[in-house]
């Protein structure tokens, strides 16, 4: 049965596939028939190779913290650090080949915050990465962190956002002077793909419910197509419940009582996903605590979505939590659930204890102290 499943995946044309079977749990085996699933094999040392993009500003420091914690936990991962600082290639600014090559080979990457280059002519790095690896779904789980008090205590939402089209297609033009048209593109394929990932995610994490958020009463054709695609995919997953929610209602409920969404996975088109996922991050305390994963057909990139914080860069003051949680998301994607649980538990315990906290969490410890505290909790 294993050989047959592997053959099916090979037929889908995922590039990094090899004929050798990798050691995997049953859960990730089920996921491997889905585009974007983790399919790499272990290298000669018995470890998975993962591309590491430290990023700018506080990026290198927090990446180092993650590496240290992983080493202490004995996670079977070897890091391949690369830089994505644009270089001049054929007169055009582009991401260095070495970085692209590495991500393509390893199919998984962990990325720190990137500084936005000022000035025109610079291709948006995130956009390029997204296009190159067909990153079609963005996953944003937001869970209230015990030990960091906000006005909301019971947040446990998961948002999956379609990442390639919708309102962010970038297709705009000025029809006549003073009249601009921006096209929102919705296709069945992209919607199906994203919905399928959402249902798989719901099944694997045990939430067993998917909620599509839309505004199909006003945008009948576009959001209507998205909703219909979700309903179609729902039929392939009879064990997962499916319902839909109007965007207005979703916004209202998240602000009034986010616990309503604790047992479901929300899936939605690009713009709504962008706004609602940032809003959910705001509920738990901001982007400094929020993980994010970009699932793609050819590779998946897990990243910290906060800024580069140049004002505290190099001072050992940075908080590596966001990048750590993103790496936990990555471990689950790779099927290394045991290590994921271990690291997540240790991090949450340190924050809950409240004795060793970095500045942004209200404490006065350094990054190193925080990292060591987590290591001692492993």
């Amino acid at each position, binding site marked *: 049965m294993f050989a047959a499943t592997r053959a099916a995946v090979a037929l889908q044309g995922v590039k990094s596939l090899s004929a050798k079977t990798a050691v995997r749990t049953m859960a990730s085996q089920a996921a491997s028939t889905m585009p974007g699933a983790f399919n790499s094999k272990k290298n000669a040392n018995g470890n998975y190779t993962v591309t590491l993009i430290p990023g700018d500003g506080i990026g290198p420091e927090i990446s180092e913290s993650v590496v240290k914690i992983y080493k202490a936990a004995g996670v079977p991962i070897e890091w391949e650090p690369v830089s994505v600082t644009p270089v001049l290639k054929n007169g055009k600014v582009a991401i260095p080949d070495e970085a692209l090559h590495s991500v393509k080979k390893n199919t998984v990457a962990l990325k720190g915050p990137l500084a936005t280059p000022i000035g025109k002519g610079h291709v948006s790095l995130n956009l390029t990465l997204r296009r190159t690896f067909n990153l079609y779904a963005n996953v944003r789980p937001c869970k209230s962190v015990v030990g960091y008090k*906000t*006005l*909301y205590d019971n947040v446990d939402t998961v948002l999956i956002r379609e990442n390639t089209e919708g*309102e*962010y297609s*970038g297709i*705009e*033009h*000025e029809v006549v*002077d*003073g*009249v*601009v*048209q*921006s*096209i*929102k*593109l*919705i*296709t*069945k*394929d992209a919607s199906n793909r994203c919905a399928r990932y959402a249902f798989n995610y719901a099944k694997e994490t045990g939430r067993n419910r998917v909620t599509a958020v839309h*505004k*199909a*009463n*006003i*945008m*009948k*054709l*576009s959001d*209507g*197509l998205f*909703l219909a695609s979700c309903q179609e995919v729902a039929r392939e997953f009879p064990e997962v419940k499916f319902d839909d929610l109007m*965007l*207005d*209602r979703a*916004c*209202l*409920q*998240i*602000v*009034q009582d986010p616990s309503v969404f604790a047992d479901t996975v929300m899936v939605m088109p690009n*713009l*709504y996903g*962008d*706004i*609602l*996922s*940032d*809003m959910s*991050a*705001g*509920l738990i*305390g*901001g*982007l400094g605590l929020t993980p994010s994963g970009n699932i793609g057909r050819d590779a998946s990139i897990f990243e910290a979505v906060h800024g580069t914080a140049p004002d505290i860069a190099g001072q050992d003051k940075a908080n590596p939590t966001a990048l750590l949680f993103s790496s936990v998301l990555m471990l689950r994607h790779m099927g290394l659930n045991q290590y994921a649980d271990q690291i997540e538990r240790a991090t949450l315990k340190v924050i809950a204890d409240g004795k060793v906290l970095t500045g942004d969490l209200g404490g006065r410890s350094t990054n190193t102290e925080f990292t060591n505290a987590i290591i001692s909790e492993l």
Partner: protein
Amino acid sequence: MLHSIPLSEPLAATFSKVGLRATSTSTIVPQPQDQIHSSKLGGRYTVTLIPGDGVGQEIAAAVKTIFKAANVPVDWEQFDVSGYTSAGDNTFQQSVESLRRNKVGLKGILYTPVSSLDHSSFNVTIRKDLDMYASLVLCKNIPGYPTRHEGVDFVIIRENTEGEYSGLEHESYPGVVESLKVVTRIKSERIARFAFDFALRNNRKKVTCIHKANIMKLADGLFLDTCREVSKEYASSGIKFDDMIVDNASMQLVSKPQQFDVMVMPNLYGNIVSNIGAGLVGGPGIVPGSNIGREYAMFEPGCRHVGKDIQGRNTANPSAMIFSSVMMLRHLGLDDHANKIANAVFKTILTGAIKTPDMGGSSTTTDFTSAVVSNL
């Protein structure tokens, strides 16, 4: 206290000022109309009433009861339009004609079916046909009804007729759908001016433009640039202007909403932000709203929810509808009546004895209405 929106003479004067200023830009500004008055006969105003679907009938009944008890000189021309009807129903057309006649209306929310085979949104059609281009929603904490956030006091001014709600969609190829978001300089300019004039007349300090111009560079870029240009004309009056990207704004709204004053934005973001705003201060039962154009004004609950799940149970909170009707009274120039009714509602909520379920109590709509009447 709810801010008054003097809209008859001052607005006409504003537009004549705008006409003069606008000759320096190449935008064509529509000619100012005469004073915006609804039909007034013998000292009484005739107002169109569209209760709407869901809890509409119940909250409209509450308003009618209170107006009667307070002897408000308003006669209702009621039309029971419903979004559940099939095409070909005449009631909707009649209600729009009535609005054209009376120029002022009070409305609940009409249901819009999801299927593309059914009619498009009646709510949107009314706003577009009568060119009620500004949607004004007031989000403010009410004393006596504490929520997670305190000190919230901001106004959402939302462009009501274009943007993502243009309704222009087509399937270019099976499985590929395009939906057009249209942004024009003319409409962006008039909504920006509305926002700044509102800020000026109501002693507001700051106008924030909410946009996503880093991604939608042309569309939201045009909106943002237009707002910026208009802001320069008001700089001398001391009104500050800044802008914020919509996802950051959502994050700020749920953590620090007190920083916002007047917010101006295109259509879809207005939908999202007004729902967040309503959630912050206590739900759709509290927040009043209005749709304002040059010739017509229509008042409705600010957070546009039909409320089908609580329909017919007499549990709806009529405050939003009552506050919207108070805004209408101010628009008509009936400030005394407006103050009386508004104070009665505030007193009812402050004493805390009568609370509808959304406020955490168990009173009915009719209980609440009676309490307001007794506090008049």
